[in-house]
């Protein structure tokens, strides 16, 4: 079972994604952290998410890139946070060439091992602002990746003000 959960900044998508994991009844819970802790702002964001997860029984795996090789326990509930960081780390930190394919292979491997995979993605596609060619290329590739992940997902949800809007409903777990 793969759920894809998107939303804008501060939309409550992380809290909803955690709820879906805790509500699944699966007790072996894995949090796959993708952000590299550079700078005070990243550290504050990481601390905020840690506090949100505290007491919910998540075991944290750091995975800024190369998701395909991550040895998550079979049958676990995995929360990947988030697709945007993972893709950026593959694109900027390794190479734009094949970055989407590496992420997709990683997700396929993860969903095969985990009983439930919840992927959080950031909606970056609706500010209407002009960007330079490199940024646009990256944004287009990320948007295309969102389409691919949505296509492989059993359920797709967009979170607005903490409220999930269902774009595709999964069958019962």
């Amino acid at each position: 079972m793969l759920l894809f959960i998107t939303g804008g900044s501060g939309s409550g998508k992380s809290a909803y994604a955690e709820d879906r994991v805790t509500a699944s009844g699966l007790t072996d819970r894995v949090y796959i952290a993708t952000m590299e802790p550079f700078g005070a702002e990243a550290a504050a964001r990481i601390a905020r998410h840690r506090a949100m997860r505290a007491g919910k029984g998540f075991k944290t795996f750091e995975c800024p890139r190369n998701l395909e090789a991550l040895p998550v326990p079979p049958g676990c509930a995995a929360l990947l946070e988030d697709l945007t960081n993972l893709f950026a780390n593959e694109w900027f930190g390794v190479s734009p060439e094949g970055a989407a394919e590496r992420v997709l292979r990683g997700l396929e491997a993860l969903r095969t091992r985990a009983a439930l995979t919840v992927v959080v993605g950031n909606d970056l596609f609706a500010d209407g602002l002009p960007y330079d060619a490199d940024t646009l290329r990256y944004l287009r590739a990320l948007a295309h990746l969102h389409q691919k992940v949505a296509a492989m997902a059993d359920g797709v949800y967009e979170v607005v003000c903490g409220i999930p809007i269902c774009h595709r409903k999964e069958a019962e777990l």
Partner: protein
Amino acid sequence: MTLVIGGAGQGKLALTLRVLGLDPSQAGSAPEENPPVLNHLETWLKTERDPLPALEAYLARRSDAVILCDEVGCGVVPMDRSDRDWRERVGRTCCTLAARAELVVRVYCGIPTVLKGDGTHWN
């Protein structure tokens, strides 16, 4: 309290005034002024770093308030720290308001979708 959200220029105010039978003079931009319709919450939040006390006081005075806020979180992370903080603050404030609202409506191209509550009169 009703929360109405949507992207910029989607027709939130026009729809709200039509549905509620209000006129534009009943929309204001600061909770301190106690308007029936609080428009452009996102603009007020630019300078309000700790917005919840003023909003709580406003809602205590006016429990049937209608609050309109642009969605601003669906873009590239801003380069400027204060823009990032503002964007996050708008999102978190809307999550808090949505949790306690009786009705949450999202307006897209002038068309309302009720996300929470009984909004049959909005459709």
